């Protein structure tokens, strides 16, 4: 196995992990509260997505050390997500279209 020649001794202070840990708890609590207070519509969605991406970002950046990694690795990992984003976007449209044609033709009878 390839060992990195120079022993890596630089680690991070424990404080930063505890901080992120605390933040994750708080954010999880917040996203739970979104459901608790039954926010609906756009507000609900934007809050859910906001907390979700914040949590995901914190885990990736600090727990998975991506914040300290070099850009070469970070970019290799993040760019493929555009394909996912495209897939998600198109499937949202497709889902709506399928629902529309089902409702339109089978329930409304709009022919």
């Amino acid at each position: 196995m390839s060992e990195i020649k120079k022993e890596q001794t630089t680690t991070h202070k424990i404080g930063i992990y505890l901080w992120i840990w605390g933040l994750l708890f708080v954010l999880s609590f917040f996203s739970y509260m979104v459901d608790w207070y039954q926010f609906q519509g756009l507000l609900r969605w934007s809050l859910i997505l906001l907390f979700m991406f914040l949590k995901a970002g914190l885990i990736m950046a600090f727990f998975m050390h991506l914040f300290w990694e070099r850009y070469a690795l970070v970019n290799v990992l993040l760019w493929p997500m555009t394909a996912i984003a495209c897939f998600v976007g198109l499937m949202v449209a497709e889902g709506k279209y399928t629902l529309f044609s089902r409702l339109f033709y089978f329930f409304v009878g709009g022919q």
Partner: protein
Amino acid sequence: MHVGFIFLAVIVGSVLFHIFTPWYWTDIASNWGSMDDTITLTFWVGGGVFVAVCLFMVYCIFKFSYKEGRKAEYKPEDKKLERILTWATTLGVAALLAPGLIVWNQYINVPKNAIDIDVMAWQWGWQYRLPGEDGKLGSTKVENINDNNPFGIILEDINGKDDVLIQSDVLHLKNNRPVKILLRSVDVLHNWYVPQFRAKMDAVPGTITYYWFEPNKVGEYEVLCAEYCGVGHYGMRGRVFVKSEQDYEKWYQEQETFSDLVAKQEEIEFSGTKLVKNNLND
């Protein structure tokens, strides 16, 4: 050297085959001449590129095949040439794409005066439903399909009462009148395809898909299923007659509507129960 000649023969042969082939499009019988035009355009541009690239290759074979002691040119890159080629290709591709998109826009936007036709597919056959006087088709449900209601029309829907039902795979169309084909499948994917009309679309169970065309040539055509649908796929044929307005109206009047069917069935049922009763009385 013979290598170059054989490749040359292949290219010339391909071109000659294309010119003299007896196998080519069936005569078009719908408004989608624009599809044929885009194909022709693509053929000219694409065929030109094919011939040019291959002839260049053959030329290289003749001109630069191995000679002891000769040294090849050393030229890793030629920015200018590469740029010219990139832009020329981009331009060519854009020229092919633009008409395609324009025609596609026509393809997905159905004209207002189109007649809706419900094409129902199953393994392995077709049947059709035309709107009645009101010009509207009644809505349907797969669960409703049975012997008495072969199209699964929702009984509460008044639009469905006067729908004309054609329980055979033969459809008649009015010449020069656009039709919107509403495809419906009760089991697997199918595709209602008449080569002469050029247009096609899959019938997907669970939803309804559509396309439109305007038949413009009186005649008889064969319907093929163009989406693999199980062992009977190849036998899933139908027929279409495109008729002049008069002939079409005559045919149309002869067809049975949904209410006719319901009435007939009630009669049968009625007489059936009577029969049973009589038998019991005996």
